């Protein structure tokens, strides 16, 4: 990665240091939650930030990943890495089907269609026997990585989650900066021109959609292994809203924005819950409104604009 700008290298180094150092200071379960959601937000950002498509239904892929991984680990006795992988595969297939439908429309319609399709997944999950209905899938074993490394301690599991996050993060970084990613950005800026240049725009959109869905599935599956639980919360529409919120707060279309957004939002949920109780939703809504009205670049976007360097 020779062409990586210095600013991004420094930011990446800082993130790496934080990831390595924080479990010695902070509650690992909390950190794992942050990493799972950071990956979720990064996946979501691929669509909104680099293709300009607002998916309001990413809970479907996150939740499906979570259910399938939980089921695979618990019922089929898969090792955690295979469980997460199977969650990702199912999320990708679902993303392929829904993406194929949704890219027929764009803009607001795209958002509404993805939301409605995700809600259909939610209703199916409510009824399907394998999801355990309202109880969810509980007591999911954390198992042994590759059948060898015991993950029952939070500390051991943390490193796996950190590795999963970093792999997903770097993968998307690679995608965005590949020729493929350049075409995506061209579509975002001017779809008509991309078409006229001979690009099969729909194919590009669909591939981006599937990648995003698959990574959301990885995030959901990892979360299921961490919390040993997969429930309807993972697949319901507020979860889609969380991905949007984290990305918006961190900075749409930036590389480091979504993880920062996830960190801020999860921290807020965790810490303010004891002080504000049920007012957390109201605060989240307020952040939404404030971001849209006055802070559309997000945290990292603002820093980026100040520095004049990409982050």
């Amino acid at each position: 990665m020779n062409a990586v700008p210095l600013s991004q290298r420094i930011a990446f180094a800082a993130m790496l240091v934080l990831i390595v150092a924080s479990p010695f200071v902070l509650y690992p379960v909390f950190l794992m939650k942050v990493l799972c959601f950071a990956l979720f937000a990064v996946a979501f950002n691929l669509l909104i930030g680099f293709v300009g498509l607002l998916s309001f239904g990413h809970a479907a892929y996150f939740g499906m990943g979570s259910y399938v991984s939980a089921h695979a680990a618990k019922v089929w006795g898969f090792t955690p890495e295979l469980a997460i992988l199977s969650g990702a595969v199912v999320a990708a297939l679902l993303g392929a089907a829904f993406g194929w439908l949704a890219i027929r429309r764009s803009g607001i319609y795209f958002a509404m269609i993805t939301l409605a399709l995700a809600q259909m997944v939610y209703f199916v999950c409510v009824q399907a026997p394998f999801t355990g209905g309202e109880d969810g899938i509980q007591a999911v074993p954390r198992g042994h990585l590759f059948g060898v490394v015991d993950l029952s301690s939070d500390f051991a599991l943390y490193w796996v989650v950190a590795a999963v996050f970093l792999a997903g993060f770097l993968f998307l970084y690679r995608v965005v900066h590949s020729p493929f990613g350049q075409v995506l950005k061209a579509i975002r800026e001017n779809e008509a021109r991309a078409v006229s240049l001979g690009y099969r725009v729909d194919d590009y959109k669909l591939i981006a959609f599937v990648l995003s869905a698959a990574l959301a599935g990885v995030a959901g599956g990892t979360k299921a292994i961490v919390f040993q639980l997969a429930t309807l919360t993972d697949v319901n529409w507020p979860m889609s809203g969380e991905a949007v919120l984290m990305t918006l707060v961190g900075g749409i279309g930036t590389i480091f924005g979504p993880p920062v957004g996830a960190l801020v939002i999860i921290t807020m949920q965790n810490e303010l819950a004891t002080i504000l109780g049920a007012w957390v939703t109201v605060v989240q809504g307020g952040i939404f409104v404030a971001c849209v009205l006055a802070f559309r670049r997000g945290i990292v976007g603002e820093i980026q604009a100040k520095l004049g360097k990409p982050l």
Partner: protein
Amino acid sequence: MTLNRRTLLGTAAAGALPLVTPMRAPRAQAGNTIRIGVLTDLSSLYTDLAGQGSVLAARMAVEDFNPGAKGFNVDIVSADHQNKADVGSTTARTWYDRDGVDAIVDVPNSGVALAVNQITREKNKVMLVSAGATTALTGASCTPNTIHWTYDTFSQAAGTGRAMVAAGGDSWFFITADYAFGHALEADTEKFVTASGGRVLGKVRTPFPGTTDFSSFLLQAQSSRAKVIGLANAGGDFINCVKQAGEFGITRRGQKLAGLLVFITDVHGLGLQTAQGLTLTDAFYWDRNDGSRAFSEKFHPRNRGIRPTMAHAGVYASTLHYLKAVEAVGAEKAKADGAAVVAKMKELRTADPLFGEGEIRPDGRKLHPMFLYEVKAPNESRGPWDYYKLIREIPIADAWRPLAEGGCSLVRT
């Protein structure tokens, strides 16, 4: 929460480093402070039958036990699980890991109870279930760390289900809340129905929580032409079903409603005019004897006038018995080893003003008689909350699932 942590929070919110709660920082606590967490429904459809009343009941148990005189302290924390297994288990995990909670009580909602059950065992703490109902807690999922106190789906089916079948209701249609509790209640009742020669004509699962309009489910029940519509739900769901069945004239066309888990707060919500004649199974009625009346007199003024339900009574009695066991093993040991306290609870006989004397079975099942009541007609009621008349007492032998049938691994056969 210390001031220091809040200032740190300000920094975090400002977008700087998240200086959140350190990993190993249980709040300042002496080795002789027992912390009890009331995990309950503070915002949704079980909030009247459990909710704040359960927190109060736990508090009253501590007051009556007077731990200060016995050399240790007790404090109570509470949280809302919103009827979501993930919220409940996250709370339980943080309580045990970070906040030094030693025992979790109440836990209405079987789904949440099962999730917390697992975590409690893993962390070797204690769970005392009052308003959770699934028999799995003393069956396939039983642990040496859990006591199931007040009622379960078997005791409800054995009471109301059996009584309905005996009265000629031999064909059933179930409207079932779609989670562990509803499924278990439906399954247990179905066993009694089929065992006595009855038939189940159909069943429908309703999303939980969040279903408020039951009319289309009731119409499905109507089209099945079953004699009895079994309501395998509770609290607000039950109230809505009964009201809407009235609206669609379902009872007027000769079908009977069977509420399988009815609390006195539900009867209060429906009003006697609508609820009269309902048969129900209860572990506790405030007006049953002097002990229950004395408790109720102290309880309801502090609980917005709501009289204690059996869930509240169970929280009180189980907390009281837990504290006795803590005293017996010593607070320090009790904090370190939840299973030891539960073992002591099973060893000691129970004695409290609400359930009288009793005992706890090896599988964690608390044993006491249950009662079959009928709801009074408005003209029979002589005062506020005077709602029930006793039909009969269900002896322990009939009320609970036999020890051998549960499949609990703690039971030596």
